[in-house]
């Protein structure tokens, strides 16, 4: 087009018409040009970039859903399952597909006989649920219930019965603290690992105990399901499915039968039993009772059950075997005797026990008020004479006793597959100066030699001590069967002659008219050797002593003495070592006292049938096996709650803390050591956090 020259140009009708024609052609040309441009652009997108956009369309269309992997089993040394997976039948509701929500829920409640509070929960969640997120109606259904819902599906739009796997612990409460439990991953877990598996419904992670420590080995590889979904997340059809790879099996050194026996044998007491194989340090049983049922924890524990457990003064939520710290009491005496022998004292050195000994300006008493008369080492251990050890320990000095204590495992932190352990204290002058800035006093030595004062031990350490006294070797506790360990070395400074003396004395405790007669073995040919202990948890004042020490039966539970026993069998060729601590047991009941519990537990290893018969007879007197008793306790608690409902505001959290603090408190000590930092860590999270996780 020519550039018009405005000034000269004379515009006529004909010229204007020509201009129009030219310009209309330009407009038409532009239209064709833009049309071609658009076609070219479209070709660019749909031909050149076709692959890129095809992939994007496909990733829009196809949604990958993870199938949670089945968790690896935990089996005992004989291959019996301690934790496995149970086929789980469950029913969910998909809100968007429901036509008559009210009627469907009513129908389901009838079919599955759901309790009214569950129906309320379902209605609640249905109101809150948006889109296609399913609402759980019920899980752990029987096959019959599952089938009953499945056949009625045509009448129940939006109801989705399904089959999955849930963790199952056949032994229930007796493995609670050993294995821990599983639960939905917390928001924190997800923030740390960013693994989409963690937020997959139905996926559980180990929350405590071995389940937590071996979580990675137990977790398998997830399967995947490709489904076609709409933009709003509605599933149109399933495309392909890849099945999951289950996690690895873990074989423990635990003997399932023994573990269960030990848990049941602890009766109604708050206590713990640990059994160690003297050949290699394998832990055969590690029971802490009462306990929670890991099955109910793994499906999300109810508020009520949590409240009951945390209010119980027998602290079922604490793993006493690793986190319970107790003054070892007289159970340290064989160890002190070993130190004396190492220090060159003769076992025949005699001390006269008159029932009390003045140290400085304090009068220290023997448990026998009349005194034992002249005692040598064997008699001092057998009769648990305090005066002998008061005197001899002062001659030897605390440093050498503390050194021996550490060599037999006291105060030692073992490399264990548990998230937390408290490892107690072996006090010595350096430790006290560092900790409290005060000089070590004679009375500190006197206190320590009878396992009081600053000295603290956990039940596992006590079992290790028993096994080391039995074998003279530095055995290490061990939970994984077949794991390679360096051979245990002999304890330095301990000769076979020393060991023979100690074993002989410990045999006398049980079989020679000593304090542990209750632990006498019922198995012919198997002699149990051991040492009893009593740990005071309160100071006995001069005034009280003058008026007569109050018996344990008259004291409130929290002030009663702890009862302890450590030992091994057979005494002449030790095969198994045992430790038992009964919290606030107070030696009130011979059947439920530490020596007999330890002895019966050992007897199970030699004659399970006979041991079981005795236990079943005893259990009748206690009101049946633990599960039965716990169910009864739960029912009573529920009833009590129902009665007081609306009048009392329950505060489960503060109660749990109280229990923990009480347990660690030691009124006899001038300044009790602070509770172990793990104390709060071992308490499982409140039920709210479990239920809230999707």
């Amino acid at each position, binding site marked *: *087009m020519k*550039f*018009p020259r*405005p000034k000269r*140009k004379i*515009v*006529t*009708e004909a010229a*204007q*018409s020509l*201009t*129009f*024609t030219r*310009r*209309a*052609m330009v*407009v*038409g040309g532009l*239209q*064709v040009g*833009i*049309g071609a441009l*658009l*076609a070219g*652009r*479209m*070709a660019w*997108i*749909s*031909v050149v*970039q*076709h692959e*890129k*956009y*095809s992939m*994007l*369309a*496909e990733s*829009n*269309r196809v949604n990958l859903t993870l199938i949670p992997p089945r968790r690896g089993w935990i089996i005992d040394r004989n291959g019996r399952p301690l934790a496995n997976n149970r086929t789980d039948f469950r029913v969910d509701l998909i809100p968007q597909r429901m036509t008559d929500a009210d009627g469907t829920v009513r129908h389901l409640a009838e079919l599955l006989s759901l309790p009214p509070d569950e129906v309320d929960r379902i209605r609640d969640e249905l109101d809150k649920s948006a889109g296609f997120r399913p609402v759980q109606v019920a899980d752990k259904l029987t096959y019959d219930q599952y089938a009953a819902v499945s056949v009625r599906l045509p009448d129940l739009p939006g109801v989705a019965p399904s089959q999955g796997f849930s963790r199952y612990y056949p032994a229930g409460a007796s493995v609670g603290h050993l294995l821990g439990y599983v639960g939905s991953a917390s928001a924190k877990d997800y923030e740390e690992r960013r693994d989409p598996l963690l937020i997959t419904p139905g996926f559980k992670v180990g929350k405590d105990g071995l389940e937590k420590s071996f979580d990675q080995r137990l977790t398998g590889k997830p399967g995947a399901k490709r489904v*076609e*979904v*709409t*933009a*709003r997340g509605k599933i*149109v059809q399933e495309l392909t499915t890849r099945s999951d790879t289950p996690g690895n099996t873990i074989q423990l050194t635990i003997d399932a039968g023994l573990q269960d026996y030990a848990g049941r044998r602890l009766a109604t007491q708050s206590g713990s039993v640990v059994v160690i194989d003297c050949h290699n340090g394998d832990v055969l049983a590690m029971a802490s009772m009462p306990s929670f049922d890991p099955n109910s924890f793994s499906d999300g524990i109810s508020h009520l059950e949590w409240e009951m457990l945390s209010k119980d003064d027998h602290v079922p939520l604490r793993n006493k075997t690793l986190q319970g710290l107790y003054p070892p009491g007289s159970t340290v005496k064989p160890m002190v005797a070993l130190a004396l022998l190492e220090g060159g004292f003769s076992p025949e050195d005699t001390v006269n026990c008159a029932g009390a000994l003045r140290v400085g300006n304090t009068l220290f008493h023997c448990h026998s008020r009349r005194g034992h008369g002249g005692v040598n080492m064997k008699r001092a251990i057998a009769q648990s004479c305090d005066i002998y050890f008061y005197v001899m320990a002062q001659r030897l000095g605390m440093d050498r006793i503390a050194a021996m204590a550490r060599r037999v495992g006291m105060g030692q932190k073992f490399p264990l597959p548990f998230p937390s352990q408290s490892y107690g204290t072996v006090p010595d002058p350096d430790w006290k100066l560092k900790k409290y800035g005060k000089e070590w006093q004679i009375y500190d030595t006197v206190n320590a030699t009878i396992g009081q004062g600053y000295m603290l031990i956990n039940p596992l350490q006590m079992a290790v001590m028993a096994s080391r006294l039995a074998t003279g070797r530095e055995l290490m506790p061990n939970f994984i069967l077949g794991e390679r360990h360096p051979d245990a070395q002999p304890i330095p400074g301990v000769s076979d002659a020393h060991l023979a003396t100690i074993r002989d004395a410990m045999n006398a405790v049980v079989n020679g008219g000593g304090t542990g007669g209750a632990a006498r073995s019922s198995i012919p040919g198997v002699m149990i050797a051991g040492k009893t202990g009593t740990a005071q948890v309160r100071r006995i004042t001069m005034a009280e002593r003058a008026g007569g020490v109050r018996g344990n039966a008259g004291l409130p539970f929290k002030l009663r003495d702890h009862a302890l026993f450590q030992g091994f069998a057979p005494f002449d060729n030790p095969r198994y070592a045992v430790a038992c601590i009964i919290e606030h047991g107070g030696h009130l009941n011979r059947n439920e006292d530490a020596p007999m519990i330890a002895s019966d537990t050992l007897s199970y290893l030699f004659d399970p049938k006979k041991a079981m018969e005795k236990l079943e007879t005893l259990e009748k007197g206690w009101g049946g096996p633990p599960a039965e008793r716990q169910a009864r306790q739960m029912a009573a608690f529920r009833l009590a709650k129902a009665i007081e409902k609306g009048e009392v505001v329950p505060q489960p959290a503060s109660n749990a803390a109280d229990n923990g603090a009480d347990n660690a408190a030691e009124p006899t000590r001038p300044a009790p050591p602070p509770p172990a930092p793990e104390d709060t860590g071992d308490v499982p999270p409140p039920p709210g956090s479990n239920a809230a996780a999707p």
Partner: protein
Amino acid sequence: MSIIPQPLTQFPWRVLALLAAIAGFGTIVLYSAAGGSITPWAINQSVRFCVFVVMALVLSRIPIELFARFAFPAYGGLLAALVLVELIGGVAGGSQRWINLGFMQLQPSEFMKPVIVLAVARFYARLPVGEIRGWNAIWPALVLIGAPWALVLVQPDLGTATMIAAGGVTVMFLAGLPLRIFIGSGLTLAAVVPIAFSFLHDYQQKRVLIFLDPESDPLGAGYHISQSKIAIGSGGIFGKGFLKGTQSHLDYLPEGHTDFVFATMAEEWGLVGGVLLIGAFLLLFRWGIRVSLRAPDKFTRLVAAGLTTTIFFYVAINLMMVMGLAPVVGIPLPFMSYGGSSMLTVMLCVGIIMAIDREARRRSRSIGNWS
């Protein structure tokens, strides 16, 4: 003389067949977009098309002088309606684009698209020939265009405002205004755009920015363009097949039956379907331009070419938007997008062009009779 009766030969068969083909294709796409169902969109759209075809044929019988006479009154009425809409919107709070007449909702900005062409054409038709290079040829047209443009822009409806301005300016160009004016103002516009940008609403600015880089916000405001490109790109050359589009059927493509109907079509019919559709529209524009070239006078020439360009702007802006070459401004694709008002406007344009076509044939015949 042909043996076929004159009214039949005069009847615009060819253009009607073209329109029916495009609209029929649109109906098929709407049938697929509804998941293989003639309800709710396909049936409505085809009935509407039939009604509007009849309306266009009636329009084509109206003497062309009537359009010329009513160009300014119609323009004035619509301008008043636009002001009224603005007032009602101000009272009701928020933006409102229509007046409720009781039996229907009138959207004056929609009708302004063809009427601005008529008004500006009318102005230039009445302008003495010698004035065309003077200042008097420019400012009245600018006022005619500027007033509705500003009113629609503040609604705010950037897409319609752009179309009104483009339609009016096209007529100015066709009327023979000096070319330097267009080149000069084009350059000025390029300089002014960044300043104008700062006056846009936040959401409009955002749309423009996201248009420039849709992947920056694929789940937010860029979602439309991203999903549309995915639909077109994944269709490939021959498409995924009828009723097999995943983007539209699984609801990933938003507005898949209205503004983004082209993406729905391209996913299932591929590049082939797209090129055929663009070709069909080009045939329609070719018919419009050819009508304007044989039109008997200045007014009809300008109107025929101007209205053709208006339809062209619908198509071009919509396709550019769908393919990620323009921001999302809400301009539907004629005959394809589901919706009544845009089809009414486009059929008005077609009807008027047909009337001009008829007039041109009548005059050329009478001239032929003379000679």
